[in-house]
């Protein structure tokens, strides 16, 4: 099990895990999102390669209504 923080929430997942797999487990596969891992942007094209490791802090964002 790896323990990570996603959008401010502690979550546990069976590892190993990459960003694409994480998004699938969060039911976000195929959705337009941007992802930051430990303060660094992970380009969408690298989601399948970038591992998610114990203690990582991730931010996953979308566009919402705003002025």
């Amino acid at each position, binding site marked *: 099990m790896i323990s990570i923080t996603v959008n401010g929430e502690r979550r546990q997942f069976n590892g190993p895990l990459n960003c694409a797999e994480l998004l699938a487990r969060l*039911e*976000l596969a195929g959705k337009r999102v941007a992802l930051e891992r430990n303060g660094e942007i992970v380009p*969408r094209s690298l989601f399948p390669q970038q591992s998610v490791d114990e203690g990582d802090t991730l*931010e996953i*964002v*979308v566009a*919402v*209504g*705003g*002025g």
Partner: protein
Amino acid sequence: MKPHENLDPLVIAGKSYASRLLVGTGKYQDFAETKAAVEASGAQIVTVAIRRTNIGQNPNEPSLLEAIPPSKFTLLPNTAGCYTAEDAVRTLRLARELLDGHDLVKLEVLGDPKSLYPNVVETLGAAKTLVKDGFKVMVYTSDDPIIAKQLEEIGCVAVMPLASLIGSGMGILNPWNLQIIIENARVPVLVDAGVGTASDAAIAMELGCDGVLMNTAIAAARNPVLMASAMKKAIEAGREAFLAGRMPKKLYSATPSSPTGGLINPAKPA
């Protein structure tokens, strides 16, 4: 210029836009209303906010970008809710990734949650970082002409002073400052925030603003779609009046519009 000929585009960062009205997408009842209002406004540049997604709690949540597709509109991601330069920069880097490298952004760094007044010190810092990082920055700021000029000198592609507080609908509170900013600027000046109704938008354009960005004035109207249509006309009317050049005001100096001669019974002033 003949009316309704698009010889007068708004040019931002080298790109031309026929509409001088920019609209936000917040505070609508649902995405259907957002879409209808945005379409009625005729806006081509549409702001969006960047927020954490739900993480599995609501997998069928509709997406704003389905209602307002990036293929049809120039999306302008904002940094609403950011109180530091660092948070604003981070948010816009995420936005650029989200929107496939799109680099036209709206920077706003707030100073106080009650007034939502901009923190211009943090704004200047964030603008420097973003410009260096290749962003095309349209920047929300106070109506301070010195700060507006500094933001231009940093390399912002448009300066967007407030007319009054965000979401207040108080209208143009300091036309004099806006006029100084407009006279000094070599980049487009857009009023961002404070417009309450169509006449406010027309006044901003008559002052010589290059455009107006608004959200609440449309979204919080009793009939948002109708107000969006009114705003479109107000922006066009204000722009045409500005280009046409208004007549001078003549206090205590009435001049009749009709011929003074040829009256059937010429009256003698008493």
